[in-house]
């Protein structure tokens, strides 16, 4: 069993690192502002992400080159019954019947729910 410290140490010695540009990109995706960070804070984040990478790489068979493509996300397993046990194909009459039967649910806030203020406000 690999030692965690060894994994992280091994990863530090490779060229496969999280650089500043990647940190900036990830922060931006999370709608966070990177230029408020100090250099030491950036390094903490970078080190943390590098550790994550070490664990992630360990989980994959290193002999197989994993080519990340957006399309491969389409084939992820989903725990949804309909993916594995296909329902009856929807006909036009069935679709129309579903529309007729629609009824808003008070418990879901679909009836009479309003915000207690006119707007949701974000201060820049």
């Amino acid at each position, binding site marked *: 069993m690999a030692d965690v410290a060894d994994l992280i140490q091994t990863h530090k010695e490779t060229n496969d690192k999280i650089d500043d540009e990647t940190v900036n990109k990830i922060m931006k995706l999370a709608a966070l502002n990177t230029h408020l960070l100090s250099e030491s804070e950036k390094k903490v984040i970078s080190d943390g992400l590098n550790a994550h990478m070490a664990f992630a790489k360990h989980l994959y068979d290193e002999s197989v080159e994993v080519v990340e493509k957006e399309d491969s996300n389409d084939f992820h397993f*989903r725990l949804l019954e309909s993916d594995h046990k296909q329902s009856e194909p929807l006909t036009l009459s069935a679709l129309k019947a579903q529309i007729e039967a629609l009824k808003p649910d008070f418990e879901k806030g679909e009836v009479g729910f309003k915000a207690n203020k006119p707007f949701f406000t974000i*201060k820049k």
Partner: protein
Amino acid sequence: MRFIRLLSHSTISRFKLDPNYAFKCGIEIHTQLKTKYKLFSLSPTTTSSHIVPPNSSISYFDIGLLGTQPKLNPEALLLALKLAAALGCEVQTTSAFDRKHYMYPDQPLGYQITQHYHPIAKNGSLTLRSGVDDEGNYRLDADKCINIEQLQIEQDTGKSIYTDDDEIKIDYNRANMPLVELVTKPDFENFTQIRCFLRKYQQLVKYLNICSGDMENGAIRVDVNISVNGGNRVEIKNLGSTTEIKQALRYEYKRQIQLLQVNITVSQETRGWNGTETVKARSKEDAVDYRYVPDSELSQIYLSPTIAKEIYDEIEPQLPERVLQKLVLSPYDLEVKHAKFLLDNNDNVLPYYFQLVEAVGARDPHIKCTTINNWMFHEVLGSFHKNNQIFDINVLPFDKLASLITLVNGHDSRLTLTSARVLLTHVISNPGDARPLDALIEELDLEKPRDVSEHDILEAVQEICLEIIEQNPDVVKKIRAGKAKSINHLVGLAMKESQGKVKSSLFLQTFQRLI
């Protein structure tokens, strides 16, 4: 009710293309579906035409509260399928929803639910026909088929309002409204084709009651992708009117030419339009990584293989092209522009027209449709316009107009055209006067002389003509000198004298004989 002028001429200057720089464009249209409820919840939908307080048409799911889950509204699915069928698309028997991740305050879930991998429909088309699908001054040189890449169902976002206090106010009434995104192939070669396509598309979605078709209020929003001479494409987002689209494309086309002329490669990027110029929003390198993944809470959509055909068979007779074809052929024989006017007003004026034709036919089957059309599009609409009013079917119900037409053009004609115009003007100017036509004819003394022999009528006509000739020697001199049209002045005087009870043609013949 909106009265749309039959002949509208744009005064916007022409968008001229340089033959050395080939213009290529594809468009993406976001269409707000006209459903009762939102896309993944059953909170009520609103449009900009509904005045509702902000954040009053929302559910827990719409604002992304924890523990809520999406459930597809089948009405949105039906409207999307209708659109797909109308555009001849291949409806996919299996489609699914995916999450498009990005952070913005108007997107409460942190992602938009869309269809990235498996859209609802692919490969359709909309053909533009020269002479039929022209739009005002925008005339198509030839028929043009615009191919459609795909249709996908997705959520709309909330609205962000930026204040001077450095705050962003968010209204989630629009969040989770159902949209269909239509993506065309880059088949457009000039702005005329784009303009005509948008108009035809708007008419189609309005006609099928899929969408209000209102661009100005955001029910239809357009992004364009433009390239010049096969170079990189530039996307211009969020154009809210055909004027903006034209101005933005014209600017961007010129900008790309200027770059090419100094041998600078046009970058593939996304730009916005600020009213004066296109401005860079982001480049390919700055492109957002949307991290698309299938939505883990929504079942795939499995459709019967025959559903598209069933829907098409239902809507086919109502498709604008079919109705237009019906209107320009016998028995209606409408001019294309009049047929298009009816299509543009399909919710009120079109059914009115059909009812009018039927009502006139029931009263007197010998009256031709061309006569009815002349009444509808010249006399009636002209009369409303002269009175500075918009056409209102409640002011002039179809049965009242049918009676009027029969009174003038029917077998037992009781009114001259002149008298009928007087009556029409009275009815339009006095919408509160609901008296039947017979009562108005009597009060205004408009009926043709009855129980008067033809001989007596001819004698009276001759008498009036002689009197007018005597009183207008200068006009008579002009007519004799060769100015034949001056005779119309004398006819007008005679019609006035007779209160329009005698046909103008009789006066004309008599004046010609006497002079």
